[in-house]
C-alpha cells in the first residue's frame, strides 16, 4: 500500500462511522416493525398480565425506543448481541459458529468467479463481435437469470446423486478438517459462482472494449506496440478500478445468495440461522445475523475504497 493511501486511512475510517451507525439503527429498528407486542409473544400462552409486565421490564421493553437502541448498541459494541429467544444460545456464539461456514462458501465462490470470468472477459473483449464473444455474452445472460438454488439442485442431482463425484449435502467445519471442508464447499460455491462469473465477465468485457477502442490505445497501435503488451500494460491496468468495484459488489450479492443455496445443501451457516429465526420470530438472531453481514459488507467497501487509491493514484489527489 502506498504511503498516500495509508494517509487516507483515518479519513476513510471516519467516513465509515456514520454508515455503520445508521446500519445499526436500521437493524435495531427492524424489531419495531413487528406488529404486536413482543413481550406477549415471549411470555408464551396463557401468561398473566403480571408476567407480561415482568418480561417487559426484564428485556427493557418498557423503555423509550432510543434508550432501548442505545442499550442494545452499547451491548453490541461489547460483543453482546443478546440471546436467542428459542434456544437461549448467545447470538454472538451462534454467529461465531455459523459465519465461518458461510464465509468459506462465499470466499470460494468469489475466487471461482474471478478465476473463470477474467479469461472469458478478456477473450470476449479482444474479439468483439466474434462468435466467441457472442457465446460468452449469451452464457453471461443465462448466468444472471439462473436461480442459483435451482442450479444447486441440478448440481446435486447430476454430480452428487447420479455420478457420486461430490458429497450431496452436509458440511464439515473448516476448523476440524480443511480438506474435507473445501471438498464439501465445492458444489455450493459453484452454484453461487454462476451469477458471479456472468457478472464479472460482462463488466470486464464492456470496460475493456471501451478502453481498447479509446484514442490512446489507437495511438499505441499506431506506434507499433504489440497487441499483447497493449492489453496487459494499458488495457487491464485501466479496467482495474472497475473490476474492483464489480468484485466488491459481488461480495454483497454472494452473501445474499448464499442464504438460499445453504438451504439446498443443509449447511449450518448464517442462511439457516436467519431463515429459521425469521419464521419463528426469533428477533435477536435475525438482528445479529443481519448486523454481522452488513458490517462485513461495510468493511469490504472500506477496503475497496482504500484499494482504489492504490490502483489509481489520481483518486487520492482529488
Amino acid at each position: 500500500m502506498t504511503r498516500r493511501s495509508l494517509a487516507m486511512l483515518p479519513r476513510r475510517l471516519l467516513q465509515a462511522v456514520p454508515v455503520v451507525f445508521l446500519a445499526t439503527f436500521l437493524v435495531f429498528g427492524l424489531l419495531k416493525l413487528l406488529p404486536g407486542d413482543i413481550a406477549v409473544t415471549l411470555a408464551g400462552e396463557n401468561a398473566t398480565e403480571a408476567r407480561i409486565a415482568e418480561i417487559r421490564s426484564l428485556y427493557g421493553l418498557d423503555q423509550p425506543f432510543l434508550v432501548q437502541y442505545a442499550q442494545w448498541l452499547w451491548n453490541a459494541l461489547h460483543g453482546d448481541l443478546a440471546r436467542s429467544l428459542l434456544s437461549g444460545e448467545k447470538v454472538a456464539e451462534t454467529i461465531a459458529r455459523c459465519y465461518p461456514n458461510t464465509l468459506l462458501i462465499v470466499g470460494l465462490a468469489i475466487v471461482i468467479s474471478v478465476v473463470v470470468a477474467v479469461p472469458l472477459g478478456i477473450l470476449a473483449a479482444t474479439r468483439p463481435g466474434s462468435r466467441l464473444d457472442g457465446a460468452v455474452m449469451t452464457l453471461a445472460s443465462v448466468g444472471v437469470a439462473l436461480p442459483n438454488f435451482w442450479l444447486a439442485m441440478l448440481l446435486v442431482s447430476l454430480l452428487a446423486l447420479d455420478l457420486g463425484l461430490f458429497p450431496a449435502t452436509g458440511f464439515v467445519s473448516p476448523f476440524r478438517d480443511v480438506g474435507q471442508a473445501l471438498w464439501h464447499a465445492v458444489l455450493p460455491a459453484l452454484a453461487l459462482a454462476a451469477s458471479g462469473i456472468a457478472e464479472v465477465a460482462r463488466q470486464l468485457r464492456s470496460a475493456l472494449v471501451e478502453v481498447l477502442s479509446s484514442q490512446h490505445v489507437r495511438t499505441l497501435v499506431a506506434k507499433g506496440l504489440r497487441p499483447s503488451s497493449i492489453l496487459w500494460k494499458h488495457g487491464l491496468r485501466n479496467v482495474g478500478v472497475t473490476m474492483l468495484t464489480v468484485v466488491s459488489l459481488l461480495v454483497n450479492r454472494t452473501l445474499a445468495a448464499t442464504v438460499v443455496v445453504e438451504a439446498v445443501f443443509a449447511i449450518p451457516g448464517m442462511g439457516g440461522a436467519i431463515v429459521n429465526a425469521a419464521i419463528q420470530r426469533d428477533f435477536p438472531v435475525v438482528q445479529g445475523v443481519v448486523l454481522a453481514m452488513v458490517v462485513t459488507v461495510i468493511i469490504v467497501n472500506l477496503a475497496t475504497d482504500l484499494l482504489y487509491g492504490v490502483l489509481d493514484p489520481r483518486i487520492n489527489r482529488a
Partner: protein
Amino acid sequence: MSDVLSLPSRAPVRYRVVEWLRRDPRAALSVAVLACVIAVSVLAPWIAPYPPTAQDVRNMLAEPSAAHWLGTDDLGRDVLSRLIHGASASVYAAFLAVGVSIVLGVPVGLLAGFKGGWVDDVISRGIDTLLSFPAIVLAIAVTGAMGIGLTNAMISVGIVFSPQLARLVRARTLVVRQELYVDAARCFGASTWRILTRHVLPNAVQPVIVQVALLLATALLAEASLSFLGLGIQPPDASWGAMLARAYLYMEIAPEQMVPPGLAILVTALAFNTLGESLRMALDPTLKGR
C-alpha cells in the same frame, strides 16, 4: 441495434415501438415470451387442465402422459396446472415488489436530487447504508417482522430494492434540474410540483424504465428464493419457487420434478433482462455496439 426510440421524432410512440421491435429480434422475442407468460398468468383458471390443488393420491409422481402432460407431483397434483397457476403467483409477486419499489424509490430520489443540500445528504447516506445490506437477507428479516406470506414477502423485497431506484432517479434529477427548460419553467412561475411532474420526471424516467425491467427479473428470482425457503407463498398454493421447494424434497426419487418450474423462472427472468438491455440500447444511442 436501433436508436429509433431515442430519436427526436414526430412519429407516434406506437409506430416507433413497432419499428424498434422489427429491428431488434432479441427484444421482440423477449416481448413475445413475456406476453405469453402474462397471458397465461391472467388466464390461468381457464386454461389450466386441472385445479392446482386437486390431488390424485393413486397417481403420485407420475411420468408425463396424455392426461398429465408434465406428470404429477408428490401429492398427485398436475404439474402443468400448478406451473400455469404458479405463473400467476410469480408474475403478481414480481410486479408487486417492483411497484412498491417505484412508489418508494422514485419520489425519494426526485426529492433528494431536486432539493439538494442537507436533504440530499441525509437521503444519500440512507440510500448508501441500505445498499450495504445484502438484499435477500434484509428482505428475509423484514418478512419475518411483517409476517410470512407472499404479499408481505414481496412488499419486503420492494422495500429492499427501492434504494436502487432512488439512487438512479436522484442522479438523473441532478442532471435534469440544470437544464434550461427547467429554468424557463421556473421563470414562468411554475410551481415546484409542476416542475417536478411535468419537466423533471418525464426527462429522468428513461433509465428508470430500463432498471424496472431488470428489477422485474430480480424480483422474480427473489420470489422463487423466498417461497423456496418457506417465507413466501404458503402451501397448498403454487408458485414456481414453491414448486421447486416440493421438488427438492423428492430430488432423489423424482429429479425431473425440478425441471419445469426452474426452466419457467430462467426463461422469464432471461426475457425481462434481455428486454431491459435492449431498452437500454434503444434509449441511449451512445451505447451503440457495446
